[in-house]
Structure formats: structure tokens, C-alpha cells
């Protein structure tokens, strides 16, 4: 029982971690709390589904195409709405407020666009993976193992980008000190656009995996967005390892609390945890205090 719950928690945590990564990257580099992020997840799932339906490609071939699509969409969103605001006084309350208002507006528009294009009936993405594995008491579908695998591959890819490429180094420089990065001649606009692209691609992957395990529908973005908030606060806003550890931890806590305390109130526990962490250690477990 316990081992099974831990395994389920790990699967859920993998998706949570993946969805939180894109969110935390944007905050780290651009100080943007992106409320439209959940909708990118949702659109990602719909893109993957639509590509699979139109072209007959299998999941693994359709996912990268959809990831590119969402990355482009994410960059377009940034260029049209957020760049003019970030150019101004991005540290002032006024600027911060405006950025949040704009992403909230995008949330409404993207969700309604999905309702109009695809309708509200829930659908499912067929990953084409069947069968189960049994290890001791733990039963695991192969599909869920694939989910963990995809998450591991994407996390490794992200680390490679962040630590082995020039643009990754530039990105970390901006996250640490924007004025400094500007002073040594980095093109911050281009790098932040790149972050939005990476973030969109991660959102697309997380959304597609969620759509394969549960359902694809226009309102599916709300829950992962709220989870991403909890995770990044838990792990530290802007911290990449924090998002991974936080995601796995929240997945485990939610499963264990749901199984042993109260299923109906499991989400209440995670939000309580968020408030607790914020009050005791506002920078999060992995964040640097600013």
C-alpha cells in the first residue's frame, strides 16, 4: 500500500515538476508571474492531440512538433504583450501589477480560444503504450513509466541548455543580475524571448503527458497552474532544482495525504503547506533570499 502510494506520488510529482519548471524559468529570468502558463499547458495538449489526429504521427513524433508550436506561441505572446511592459520600469509595483494583469488577460483569451476551436468535450491522448509492470507489491502501467522517462529526458535537456550552452549561461547571468548582464552587453530581450520559448516547450510536454494520463479539455490548465504556484513557492521562485524537488515532494505529499488522511481535503493540505513555507521561509527551500 505505502510503496504503491509512493510510486503513484512519483509519477504525479514528475508531471508537477515538469509543469513547474517552465513557470519558474520565466520568473527567474524575467520576474514575470505568468498566469497564462496553465493555458499553454492546455494548448500544448490540444496541439499534440490535433497533430496526432491530422497526420497520424505517433505520440513521440507529434510531441516535439507541438513543443515547437507552443514555443513559438509563447514567444509571440511575450513580444506582443509583455516586452513593452518589461522595457519600462520592471521593478516598480506599477510594472509588476501590469505584467500580472496582462497575463491574466491572456489566460482568459487563450482559454476561450480553445473552447471555440475544440469545444468543451474531454478527450484523451493515446500514447500507444500498453501493459503493466509488477515489482513486489507495486503495480505500474508502462505508460506511467514512460511519463517518468520523458520527464527525466527533458530535465537533462534543460540542464544541458542551462549549463553547457552560451545562451544558457547568458540566461543564468540575467537571472542573477539583470543590470550587470545589460552592462556587459547581453541582449536581454532576445534571451528572455528564448526563456519564453523553452518555457512554452516544457509546458507543452507537461500538458501532453497530463492529457495522456487524464483528459484534454479547455479547463485543464487551472489545476496545474495552481500546483505550479505551490511548487515554486515551496522550492523557491526562480530555482530550477527547487522546481524539480518541489514537484516530486508535492506529488508525494498529495498522494500520501489523500490516501492516509482525507482524499477530499488533499488539495487543502498542499495550500496550507504553501502558506506555511511562505511564512517561515519566504525564499523557499532552494531559493536565495533577496
Amino acid at each position, binding site marked *: 500500500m505505502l510503496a504503491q502510494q509512493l510510486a503513484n506520488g512519483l509519477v504525479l510529482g514528475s508531471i508537477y515538476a515538469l509543469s513547474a519548471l517552465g513557470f519558474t524559468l520565466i520568473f527567474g529570468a524575467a520576474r514575470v508571474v505568468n498566469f497564462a502558463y496553465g493555458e499553454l499547458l492546455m494548448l500544448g495538449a490540444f496541439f499534440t492531440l490535433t497533430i496526432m489526429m491530422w497526420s497520424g504521427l505517433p505520440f513521440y513524433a507529434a510531441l516535439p512538433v507541438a513543443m515547437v508550436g507552443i514555443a513559438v506561441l509563447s514567444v509571440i505572446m511575450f513580444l506582443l504583450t509583455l516586452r513593452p511592459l518589461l522595457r519600462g520600469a520592471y521593478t516598480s509595483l506599477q510594472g509588476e501589477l501590469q505584467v500580472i494583469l496582462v497575463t491574466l488577460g491572456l489566460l482568459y483569451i487563450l482559454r476561450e480560444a480553445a473552447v471555440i476551436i475544440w469545444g468543451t468535450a474531454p478527450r484523451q491522448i493515446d500514447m500507444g503504450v500498453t501493459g503493466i509492470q509488477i515489482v513486489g507489491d507495486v503495480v505500474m502501467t508502462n505508460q506511467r513509466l514512460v511519463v517518468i522517462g520523458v520527464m527525466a529526458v527533458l530535465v537533462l535537456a534543460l540542464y544541458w541548455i542551462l549549463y553547457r550552452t552560451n545562451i544558457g549561461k547568458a540566461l543564468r547571468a540575467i537571472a542573477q543580475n539583470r543590470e550587470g548582464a545589460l552592462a556587459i552587453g547581453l541582449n536581454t530581450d532576445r534571451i528572455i524571448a528564448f526563456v519564453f520559448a523553452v518555457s512554452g516547450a516544457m509546458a507543452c510536454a507537461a500538458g501532453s503527458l497530463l492529457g495522456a494520463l487524464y483528459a484534454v479539455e479547455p479547463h485543464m490548465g487551472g489545476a496545474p497552474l495552481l500546483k505550479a504556484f505551490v511548487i515554486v513557492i515551496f522550492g523557491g521562485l526562480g530555482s530550477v532544482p527547487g522546481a524539480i524537488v518541489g514537484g516530486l515532494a508535492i506529488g508525494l505529499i498529495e498522494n500520501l495525504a489523500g490516501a492516509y488522511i482525507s482524499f477530499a481535503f488533499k488539495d487543502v493540505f498542499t495550500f496550507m503547506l*504553501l502558506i506555511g513555507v511562505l511564512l517561515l521561509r519566504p525564499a523557499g527551500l532552494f531559493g536565495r533570499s533577496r
Partner: protein
Amino acid sequence: MRIVALIILAAIMIAAPSLLGDYQTYLLTLTLIWAILALSMGLVLGFVGQINLGQAAFVAISAYTCSILRQRYGVDFWLAAPVALAAVVIIAALVGLLTLRLKGPFFILVMLAFAEITRLVIANWQDVTNGPLGLKGIMPPEPILGLSFETKRSFYFLALVVLAVCLLALWRLVRSRTGRMLIAVREDELLAEFVGIPVMRSKVIGLCIGAFVAGLGGLLLGPFLSILAPSQFTLFASVDMIVMVVVGGVGTLVGPLIGAVFLVYVPEYLSFTSHFRPAMMGALLIIVTLFAPGGLIGLVGVVRGWLMPTPSKSLDAKGEGDHAG
């Protein structure tokens, strides 16, 4: 000049239900209730300077407390209402004391968590709140002082009086010592603290007053809709209030009212098909934020500046609109 406009507006609002049909009266009442809610958000957004995504939770707590007291314990509306308002203010004070020292995104996210906890408790505490199905058949307030609120028209006047009292009280508040302290804290917290303003206390008081006004709106919401369900109090209820404030004009008291008219009454009246409303709200929010940060009120100031480009007049329009660049 302003007084005359106000008297004319009041006369129109008082005459409206006699001139218009039942449906229009219903629509106006809905607009009035949303105006009260927008006003509460306007206070927090414009005078405390915080985006509060937990405002809908205050509305929910007040609406549910009042209706549960009436339906389960047979308490009179006029007795249940003060209890519900007291509950909201106490909860707001506790939440504010814990959360208002957090800044920027942290405050926003913690209030979002508070709103979600409230909604989840309402949705899952089946025995008391009837869970996701909600409370049904909430009656209009009992008669008091010989006034009955059975008809749509009488309820309209109740909402109108509540809004007018709120507006007057908040108008006096923002010109009072407390109001000036709030503005000082909003403008520069560090400086405010330096000159001896109790920053934390001002912010908590601001949040509590906002919660009180939101609670008043919540009290009316139950009897007006005759049904309360947790799905009415999601994050989007708070966002709707924010949109109204921003579209009307942040940092003013008239702005939220204009926003409520613009976003509740106008779309319904023009019978925009309901599924385009959220997209329209989103687009409006983005356009106003990017191109007219002062909202409709700010635009009025800009237009007035064009028509009467005298330096003395332009002081009036010194709102957020000037910082558009």
C-alpha cells in the same frame, strides 16, 4: 458641478425601476452588487496597492455564513448579516496579519492559496455547506422597519442604498487620516515607516475595510441569486473584480463603478453571446493595461486635457494615466 451631476445620477437611479421593466431592474441590481464588489477590490488595489486574488473568498465567507445561519438555524437576516460581516473582518485581520508582510508575487500567491482553501473547504464540507451543489432557495431578507424586500424593485433599492453608503463611507475614508496613511504606504513603504506611519497596521486596516465591503456585497448575493455554490467563488470571481477596477480606473472610487457598468450591464444589455464575454474581458484587460493604464477615468482626463489645455485644469487629471510611457 460635480454635486449637480451626482444629484442627477441619484435621481436617475431612483427613478430607473419605475421606468424600466423587471428584467432591466434585475440587471441593474446585478450591476449594483458587482459595483459593491468592484469597489471593495478598488480599495485594496488602488489604496492598499495590492493585487488581492483572495477577495472572492471574503465574499464567499460572508454570503455562506449569513445564508447558513438563516437556513439551518432560522436566524433573521438582519441578525445574521452583522455576524457574517464580523466573521469576514476577523478572518481578514488574521489573514492580513500573516500575509501582508509578504511582497509582490508572494502576497498574490498566498492570497490565491487562501482563496483556494476557502473554496475547497466550502466544496468539501458537505454537512454544513451542501458541497458543490450549494445552498438553494435563499429567501429575500425579512421585512424590517415596515420595509419589505419581497419584490425585485425593493431589493434593487436595498442594493442601491448599500452601494451609496459604501461609496460615501469610502469617499470620507480616503480623505481621512487613515486614508492618507494608506496612500503614503502605497506610494513608498519605507518612507512611510520612516515618518512614523504604522505601515503594517494601515495595510491590515485597509484589507479589513476592503473585506467588509466585499462582505456587504456577499450578503446581497445570496438572496439575489437565491443560490450559492462554490463554483461562483473561484479565482475568476476575483479577477472579474480586478478587470472592473482596472477598466474603470485604479486609485479612484468612481472607476470601479464605471467598470461594473461597463462589464456587467453593457454586455448583457447588448446581449453579447455569453461565451464571448470572458475573451472580451481578457482582451479589454490587456488593451487597457498596455495603452490606458488610467482606465476610462484616465481617458476622461486625457480628453479633458485636449479640450482645455490649461495648466491649472490638468492638475485634476494627474492620475496613473500620465505614466503611460
